[in-house]
């Protein structure tokens, strides 16, 4: 390869007090060429032959460690594939993913929650249908049969499947057993209803002047997605919704939905066991206050147990119990899941094959995910895995899953989620009565639905 090179002696020879301008300009012009050529030459020939794929996830430290370990093994087993793994901060995960996909710079393999998948990614054609053969299945029926019923529902639209579950979560309840014992409550008889949460919570509260140093119970105040999941938990139980199934009738100010917000509101204003003003707002460790012993009861997902690490006040001092219910005779728990899916813009056949191979590999060891990350991968027989026997509070999680349901997807989901975040805050922070807050929300949602 020939490149225009500047003789070194032109720069160093004795008597050359200054570089001639023409030479200098030539040097400037040639520098990128030389650097580029050098850079290209520096890449080993073998790397050029590798199929490069990008994989992005949100931030959850145990999951990140597991991903890194599995990717290393995958690349070792597939030396012709290079995986570039990137972790995106939770608070801006959705925005970064969408903007990157809009500009064609997104990852080949994404890991996204069921709400986003069904509300945005699948309807807008951002992800592609899974290829059973690429994932190592003989047919789509075989693939579906490999998972427990309903497990793929969060990534299925019009009968087409767009992702494999990386984690399958059911919401249960966590109690601080040490705090229970301290105030004379029996951890073996946890609250069964939200009213009981309120009354038991009052005993668990510890105050320093006006400030609660231990809250009896509290919700989490993070981003709009968290508000959606928590209010959604209550809506499932009260039978409320934001919008009717027809997609146009606003129902958020109907009794079922108002009752759901009333439960939230009562924890703060009636029972006085929660305080959003002191809640931690760090989305990387959502259960921080429970882990630190600042909250005695909380909603909990299986993966959350992975954050209760040795040395924290909650370590060894908590129990997972069934989720309190509005109607204990008709229990219902929310389900949510994350899915590995392939970017629709990944059209190169080699890349597609490599990406599906990676997804298949990541999904191949549910035991490791259960043991290391507390992620349930809902494959048939997951509950018979040796790791399941050691999984903390396995029986509770398994039984709660039996009455699990995915939250409904509403049109204009992100806008409505944002409206509901404002609605909840106006009620729980400013004390606006739930009915009034929901009436305002109804007007705003109607306006959003009317927009093109």
């Amino acid at each position, binding site marked *: 390869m020939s490149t225009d090179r500047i003789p070194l002696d032109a720069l160093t020879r004795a008597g050359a007090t200054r570089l001639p301008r023409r030479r200098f300009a030539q040097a400037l012009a040639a520098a990128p060429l030389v650097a580029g050529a050098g850079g290209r030459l520096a890449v080993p020939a073998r790397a050029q032959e590798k199929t490069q794929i990008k994989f992005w996830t949100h931030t959850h430290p145990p999951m990140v460690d597991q991903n890194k370990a599995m990717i290393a093994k995958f690349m070792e087993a597939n030396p012709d594939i290079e995986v570039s793994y990137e972790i995106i901060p939770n608070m801006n995960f959705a925005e970064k993913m969408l903007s990157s996909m809009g500009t064609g710079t997104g990852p080949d393999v994404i890991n996204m929650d069921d709400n986003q998948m069904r509300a945005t990614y699948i309807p807008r054609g951002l992800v592609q249908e899974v290829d059973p053969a690429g994932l190592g299945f003989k047919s789509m029926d075989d693939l579906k049969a490999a998972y427990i019923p309903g497990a793929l529902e969060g990534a299925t639209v019009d009968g087409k499947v767009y992702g494999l579950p990386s984690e399958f979560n059911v919401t249960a309840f966590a109690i601080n057993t040490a705090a229970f014992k301290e105030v004379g409550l029996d951890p073996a008889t946890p609250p069964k209803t939200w009213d009981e949460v309120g009354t038991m919570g009052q005993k668990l509260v510890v105050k320093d002047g006006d400030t609660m140093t231990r809250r009896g119970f509290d919700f989490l105040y993070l981003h709009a997605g968290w508000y959606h999941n928590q209010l959604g938990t209550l809506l499932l139980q009260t039978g409320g919704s934001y919008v009717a199934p027809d997609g146009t009738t606003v129902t958020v100010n109907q009794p079922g939905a108002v009752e759901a917000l009333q439960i939230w509101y009562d924890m703060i204003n009636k029972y006085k066991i929660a305080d959003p003003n*002191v809640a931690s707002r760090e989305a990387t460790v959502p259960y921080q206050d429970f882990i630190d012993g600042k909250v005695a009861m909380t909603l909990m997902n299986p993966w959350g147990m992975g954050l209760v690490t040795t040395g924290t006040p909650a370590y060894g001092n908590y129990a997972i119990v069934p989720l309190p219910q509005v109607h204990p005779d008709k229990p219902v728990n929310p389900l949510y899941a994350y899915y590995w899916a392939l970017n629709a813009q990944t059209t190169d056949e080699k890349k597609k094959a490599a990406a599906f191979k990676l997804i298949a590999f990541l999904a191949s060891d549910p035991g490791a995910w259960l043991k290391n990350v507390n992620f349930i991968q809902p494959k048939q027989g997951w509950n018979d895995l040796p790791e399941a026997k050691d999984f903390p509070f396995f029986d509770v999680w398994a039984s709660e899953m039996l009455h699990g349901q995915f939250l409904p997807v509403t049109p204009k989901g992100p806008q409505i989620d944002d409206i509901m975040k404002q609605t909840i805050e106006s009620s729980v922070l400013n004390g606006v009565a739930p009915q009034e807050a929901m009436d305002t929300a109804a007007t705003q949602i109607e306006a959003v639905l009317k927009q093109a």
Partner: protein
Amino acid sequence: MQPTGVAAPLPGAVAAPRRRLRPSHLQQRNLWGLVFALPAMLLFAVFAIWPIAQTFYLSFFHFSVVEPPKPAGLENYRQIFSDGRFQSSLLTSVRYVLFTYVPVWVLALLLAMGLNTRVKGRSVFRTVYFVPVVMSWVVVSVIWKLIFHRNGLLNTMFLAPLGIGPQNWLTSTDLAPTAIVMMSIWKEVGFFMVVFLAGLQAIPSVYDEAARVDGSNGWQVFRYITLPLLQPTILFATVIGLITGLQVFIPQFVMTQGGPVDATLVLTLDIYQTAFVFLDGGKAAAMSVVLFFIIAAITLVQFRLYRSRAYG
């Protein structure tokens, strides 16, 4: 006798071949200047002018960021002018600018005047006041988020000893905008102090001395000598302050995410959410265009105002 100098060509004589035109030294310098400026100009065109032009263009389209744009005419503009959220976020931005930058200008001017005297340790004071300026907005916002927490430094160290109960600085719709304004004043005052200090030091001391010889007091010197001569600096400070203030994004994004109940949702954050959360890029582009014209109009008015004062 022929005059000395260039002889006129004789009639009928054949003109001597002219020397090839060569650029003058100045032209050569200009050419080289252009060559060296070209990369920066290209970068500016690609990363500033082109996106601005694209924003104008996209404001006439429905554009979801992840799908191809579809023509929308003036629909995006119609939507934003009937959108309560847009009006509210614009008002929040204006409030932020007024409540942050008016106190900043006053404080900065006072500090600059104080440090323009021969006070002991003025270099130390200048450095101390300037330190927040060199810190990143993100770092400052994270630190102040902790300070403003209900169990944070402000409540426990400063208010509690005064017998004032803990305040919900970042979760109260009344206090959250105030908290961000307080933090911004702390962050911005140093920069404007240096600007005013430079302006004050550019005023020749003879005016001050002459006025004092004529019997003017301190206030009169300030009102009739310092302030008029400081007008170009004040213009610079107000233009920069207004532009920076209307474009503020990081503290609201980091400290409150625009909440609680949109109390700190400034226009830039609204634009960001509209584009990347609600996937309405066309509307966000229209909002950006409106913000552009607001800033341009305010700047123009300021220039006109100061020009009419200076020359009228």
